[in-house]
């Protein structure tokens, strides 16, 4: 549980870092000309978990939020803030109003389509395409867990306004499946490229976010270096604050032959996902305390969908 003292410190740190971000981002907004959005994408170098997060549900404490697709657009409030239509096509989940101009404050004042009304956070992924047609996601599931081996009671809430990008939207080589992987339904397999899935366990993309924060910055110029992954159950000294390891999964209504699929960011190797923490912060704090600190599996997805 976050104590009063810690909460106070955190708030101060957040306010400070908000102003830092506001300053450092000044040259990176609407005035930026983007000729090749893919090339301009960040290349997150945050590392990877020691191994893919997988296995029977119920093994580690977690809470989860399910959200259907909210909307799509070519906006990206982290990478191309205030530059509408500057990015590739994104599928947005959670917050109903996410757009290029979104800020922590605007998102928090908005609504969500998740089954957890306090989760007004914004989640987005590149659109899955078959030719020129977007494959509409059935739903997303955001799993919040301790990183593998991390003491659940040590996990801190994300600071309000934290921005995280996971996966490499410009990847030309296979990504580590511990970060970006495809599977069928909730199966344990973790594939670099989409497998051919049966109809009753359709394609799922899973993106695992870094779970160690530098304790200061809500974002960074490369949108990556303020975060990294834990290893061996511990966060490094450079990123000493363990936060929940978000695993964002998108279930697509797609089964069968995956040939011909692409992502709006490029080939199927370019899987990535973005998260902007605009949860109602006290509920996020409560969920971390309720489920992770007390080591309870607060929810699971049906493995039999």
């Amino acid at each position, binding site marked *: 549980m976050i104590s009063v003292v810690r909460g106070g410190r955190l708030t101060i740190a957040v306010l400070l870092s908000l102003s830092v971000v506001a300053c450092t981002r000044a040259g990176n907004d609407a005035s930026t000309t983007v000729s090749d959005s893919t090339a301009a994408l960040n290349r997150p170098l945050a590392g990877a978990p020691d191994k893919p997060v*997988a296995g029977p549900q*119920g093994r580690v404490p977690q809470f989860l939020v399910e959200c259907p697709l909210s909307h799509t657009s070519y906006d990206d409030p982290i990478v191309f803030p205030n530059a509408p239509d500057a990015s590739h096509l994104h599928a947005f989940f959670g917050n109903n109003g996410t757009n290029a101009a979104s800020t922590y404050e605007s998102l928090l004042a908005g609504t969500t389509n998740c089954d957890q009304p306090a989760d007004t956070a914004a989640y987005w992924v590149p659109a899955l395409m078959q030719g020129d047609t977007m494959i509409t996601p059935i739903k997303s599931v955001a799993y919040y867990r301790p990183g593998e081996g991390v003491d659940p009671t040590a996990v801190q809430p994300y600071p*309000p306004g934290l921005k995280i990008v996971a996966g490499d939207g410009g990847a030309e080589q296979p990504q580590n499946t511990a970060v970006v992987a495809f599977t069928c*339904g909730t199966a344990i397999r973790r594939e670099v490229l989409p497998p051919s899935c049966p109809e009753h366990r359709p394609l799922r993309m899973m993106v695992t976010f870094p779970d160690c924060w530098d304790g200061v910055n809500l974002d960074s110029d490369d949108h990556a270096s303020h975060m990294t992954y834990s290893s061996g159950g511990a966060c490094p000294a450079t990123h000493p604050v363990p936060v929940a390891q978000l695993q964002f999964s998108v279930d697509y209504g797609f089964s069968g032959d995956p040939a011909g699929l692409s992502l709006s960011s490029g080939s199927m190797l370019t899987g990535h996902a973005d998260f902007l923490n605009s949860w109602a912060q006290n*509920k996020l704090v409560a969920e971390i305390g309720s489920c992770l600190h007390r080591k309870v599996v607060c*929810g*699971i997805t049906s493995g039999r969908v």
Partner: protein
Amino acid sequence: MTKMVRFLAAATLLTLAAGCSSSTTSTGTTNASDVSTQPTQPADSATPTAGATINVPADVATIQGAVDKAKPGDLVLIQPGVYKEAVTVETENLTIRGIDRNTTILDGNFELNNGIKVVGANGVAIENLTARNYTKNGFFWTGVTGYRGSYLTAFRNGDYGIYAFLSYKGQLEHSYGAGSPDAGFYIGGCYPCDALINDVTSEYNGLGYSGTNAGGNLVIVNSIFRFNRAGVVPNSGSYELCYPERATTVVGNVVYSNNQPDTPAIDVSLLAMGNGILVAGGVNNNIERNLVFDHDKTGVGLVPFLEQDPNDAEPSQDTWDRACADTENDPAPDPSTVPAAVLWSPFNNRVIGNVLENNRVADIAVDTVDVDLSTLGNCFSGNTFKTSAPLDLEKLGPCDAAGNGGDWTAGSLNVISWLADVHPPSQDYKTSSPEPPSQTNMPDAATAPARPATDVPEKIDVAAIKVPAKPAP
């Protein structure tokens, strides 16, 4: 919801700094809130004290507010009304009770996830309430020791009606679950569970009862499972912890007409459709003295569950006695060593003294795939039945006696052909199930003292339970 969120938006930084105890403020009949306060520190409550009564809405406007205010041993007593809340309970040994089961209603409005979710708080009893229209579950205990649900009604919920997960020492009784695509009643991921389901009715669900990887003094008695896709379905699978399903006792239930074509239904409930009591890859279960009739497939069927893309390999038989608490500490399976599929076969189940009629493929049956059925150790004795698959099943595999050495392949159930069956599709849980009839109230709800779930499950004389009489049509 939006007002509350906006309020929170403004208040977030302040409440974070203040340690944030968010109190909900609107009336109990209209407030929509899944905003719980910070966890209450569990008290040392080995000996619960007679607690205070907190009245909703007289003392506290919302159920969540009352629950957050309550101390271990307290009673939260709720007046009739529609409460649009998703309540999280983190305080041990509470009793949460409605004054009138049929009119004290938690309503998720198809937006909120769980009606009441008890998270790691032992000994919480929930009584005499209705939960409807939740995207997940009506009533949900997870990670607790000691739970009781009595005189509960759960309908039109998106996963389960009444649900206990990774929880021990529980009792679900005098309750009603309907209209869920998964199960009306579900106990999952516990061994030994030490749990009792007694006098419940489950209908218009995908499954009447499902118990993935549950068992060990898990007793289901004196209940009605009807008008579901399938009735009572203990099952194994590696998608959740603690496999396989083991040692569930199913006695004295009326299980009928589980062929319902117009319910919401998850995938496996379609696969299981038309069966009364179906053990899907479970072991060491006791199925005795049930009345089972009017099913398109089997009355009591012991079948395999073919789990494709599993999360783990099948554990060896010599580990089937491991407690869940032990297996929870196992390292995660290595995806590269997990097979492409696991066939969970039914082993060592006992089917005794059931009365079966008009189960149109077979009254009693056992089958698996590519394994000699005579080696599975399942037995059948003393049942009243006409048809079996394979033929002469009580002679092939009687309980506590040698079989006749006959042919286990004659008259096979041919369960593999079920994979190709076409079933009526799942219906939307939001609209498909009928409004439930008025349900029996708890006696003396307004005056009975708090009774936390520290005395469950009660001992029940299973041996004294007789085959129930056929209900009036």
